[in-house]
């Protein structure tokens, strides 16, 4: 059996997912990185994007909207404000999210907020294009 680590996705409201995973690709603010068991401890902020988790041979794709990850050799904890399973996303739901993200983009005050909102919009659009 392949070595695993504990993968946890926690939202402010509840624990969304808690599994043993073999590998996870995390959309970090400075670029994506792959987490394998025994990864050195890191705390990283996230940009909007898709988290790719391999768990017991099953691939799970989760869309996260800002947050941060805490990594140590045996555990990966994702603290995300908003997250959903990509497979559960319907085109209608995506359209709603895109609309609210675009509103955020229009309201963004500084560069940071603008670039965050921009990534969010483009990531969501990419997802909806793929779904269509």
């Amino acid at each position, binding site marked *: 059996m392949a070595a695993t680590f504990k993968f*946890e996705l*926690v*939202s*402010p*409201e*509840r*624990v969304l997912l808690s599994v043993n995973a073999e590998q996870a690709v995390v959309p*970090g*603010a*400075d670029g994506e990185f792959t987490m394998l068991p025994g990864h*050195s*401890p*890191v*705390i*990283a*902020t996230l940009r909007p994007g898709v988290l790719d988790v391999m768990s017991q041979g099953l691939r799970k794709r989760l869309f996260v909207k800002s947050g*941060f990850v*805490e990594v*140590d050799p045996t555990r990966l*904890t994702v*603290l995300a*404000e908003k997250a959903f399973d990509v497979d559960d996303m319907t085109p209608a739901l995506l359209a709603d999210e895109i609309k609210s993200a675009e509103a955020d983009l229009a309201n963004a005050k500084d560069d940071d907020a603008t670039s965050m909102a921009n990534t969010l919009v483009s990531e969501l659009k990419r997802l909806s294009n793929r779904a269509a």
Partner: protein
Amino acid sequence: MASLKDMRNRIASVKATRKITKAMQLVAAAKLRRAQEAAQAARPYAERMDAVLAGVASRVTDKTSGSPLLVGTGKDKVHLLIVMTAERGLCGGFNSNIARLARVDALRLIGQGKTVKIVTVGRKGADNLRRDLGKNIVERIELTGVKQLGFSNAEGIAHKVLAMFEAGEFDVATLYFSEFKSVILQKPTALQLIPAKIPEAKDVSVKTATAVQDYEPGEDEVLGFLLTRNVSTQVFRGLLENAASEQGARMSAMDNATRNAGDMINKLTIKYNRLRQANITKELIEIISGAEAL
């Protein structure tokens, strides 16, 4: 002297009241369970947040140049009190206890020559503080239509507070809410929100674990990110604790009311029976003495 009919009406009315308070108690009990579950579900996030924040903050050695969210603005001239109460009454001393704690603090700060601004969350707190501190209330947030408290509610409040902070409208922010100790005990609490009170790293393992940690993009960026998130998290925690406390307070208040109504019904029923018997005796005496006179 009340007539028999009056007393019957009175008993019926108290019985109706008892039914209502009993129903409210049961509803509160059901809602309390839900609120407790929500508070419990939110705990892992808050705990991880605290631990990470404590780890990061302990690494930032230069405490003076850090983010104003952590070290403050260097002044404490203007205080912002965020007073969180319920939207509805009939829950014992719940609302007034929180309001009282906030009022005492507000008056003390005013006495020290500080400026006090108040943001109320929940209708009851605003009503309570309006009389003597009405001019200090800068914003009233109401969550009347909210059925299930979500993180977005907390974020909304936090964003308003942060926007005010960035605009330099206050130096210190304190959160007032009721901490849920148990069903019968809710403790009004003041929690300093800005500058953030950093929780001490609880055990050594946390400290040593964070000692060799990498930060991406950098420590300062991560800390800045965490501090703004922390405001929302604390507000959310306050909202959830408050929701559970409110239901707990209402449950025990309604339990008391139900018991009082029961006592009252017993007393009234005894009185009613005595009066009825007295009336019967009186009528009998009248009949008998009438018969004897013949």
